[in-house]
């Protein structure tokens, strides 16, 4: 079973909950697809055994018979490739590696060269958790390429947990797609509700079964559960706000480490998810 742990809003506890689930239901493979801020290893300490570069193909220009390629430059809507003063300038960080310029330009003028956009590290954490984490290089924008690279290391013979990036755009979609179930993490605030609404649209678009976990629950704001009920979106668990949980999480402890009683509750949640897929 592949479970994506997502959430429209940042800071609602996606990583705390996904790493806590991993601890409770191991053996499992954990994929940190929040590649712009990969911090699951704060909760699941691990020693990377392999580190691999994620590369995309970008054009390199060689002056060939003084020929520039206007068609390729005109085609590039990201200005990664421009013609200026009978020369071509290339900005690899703006290139999305679509390959259009290679089709339009003679091979003698443009050749594909690798450009590193991130790193993928894999290794083993304690308690039977296999970890893969991706990290986008600062200044790069090929977020989805790094996510795809992390997901290409998915193991087929064990359960997989995916820590997704926040939001409802391409990176979140890329991390969620192909999973069997989406766990939508939110908090009981108007912000949490707004972003959950967007997340719901995304899982509907992908046709994935989903359920909600409300983190830091127990406050007076009840709109999140009311809205979820209206939508037929099950609220599978609530994690009450306690000073003990906040203190533990701030120190990089997962829920089962903060209170072993969470092991049972999280396994129950896992069983519930299994029934719904």
């Amino acid at each position, binding site marked *: 079973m592949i479970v994506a742990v997502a959430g429209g809003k940042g800071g609602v506890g996606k990583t705390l909950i996904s790493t806590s689930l991993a601890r409770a239901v191991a053996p499992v493979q954990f994929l940190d697809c929040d590649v712009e801020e990969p911090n699951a290893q704060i909760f699941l300490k691990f020693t990377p055994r392999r580190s691999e570069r994620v590369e995309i193909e970008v054009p390199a220009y060689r002056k060939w018979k003084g020929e520039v390629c206007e068609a390729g430059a005109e085609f590039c809507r990201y*200005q990664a490739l421009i013609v200026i003063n009978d020369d071509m300038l290339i900005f690899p960080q703006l290139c999305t590696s679509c390959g259009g310029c290679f089709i339009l330009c003679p091979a003698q003028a443009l050749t594909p060269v690798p450009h590193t956009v991130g790193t993928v590290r894999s290794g083993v954490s304690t308690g039977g958790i296999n970890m893969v984490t991706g990290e986008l290089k600062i200044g790069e924008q090929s977020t989805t390429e790094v996510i795809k690279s992390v997901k290409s290391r998915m193991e087929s013979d064990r359960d997989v947990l995916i820590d997704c990036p926040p939001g409802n755009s391409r990176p979140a979609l890329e991390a969620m797609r192909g999973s069997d179930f989406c766990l939508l993490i939110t908090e009981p605030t108007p912000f949490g509700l707004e972003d959950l609404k967007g997340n719901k649209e995304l899982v509907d678009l992908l046709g994935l079964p989903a359920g909600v976990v409300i983190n830091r629950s127990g406050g007076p704001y009840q709109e999140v559960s009311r809205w979820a009920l209206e939508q037929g979106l099950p609220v599978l668990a609530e994690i009450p706000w306690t000073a003990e949980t906040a203190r533990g999480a701030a120190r990089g402890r997962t829920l089962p480490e903060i209170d072993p009683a969470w092991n049972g509750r999280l396994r129950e949640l896992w069983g519930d998810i299994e029934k719904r897929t």
Partner: protein
Amino acid sequence: MKIVVTSTGPELSSAADPRFGRCAYFIVVDTDSMDFTAHSNASGSAMGGAGIQAGQFVSSLGVSVVVTGAVGPNAARVLSASGLKVYTGASGTVQQAVDAFKGGKLNASASATVGAHNGMR
């Protein structure tokens, strides 16, 4: 001599825009006659690559000098490939920036004076 000044408005009395790629207007000024033409910057709200687009546009204006507050790395590459001289540190109105340039009070910058995405802040 024709120069271009980045500006927040279309007049010589408008405040000079400290940003290059995301400035509101490019004002082409003839430093002898003080005749000027204002061009609004189409790349001011571009998602990305604003400095590159602006650099390409400016290089098509037939000027030899760019006067602005600061330039980022991508714009600096384009302007230098276009053979344009870049003067940074412009402040006050466009008129004052032109005067400062004429008085030799601005810094000639061969490379970027700020990091990427500075104009988005």
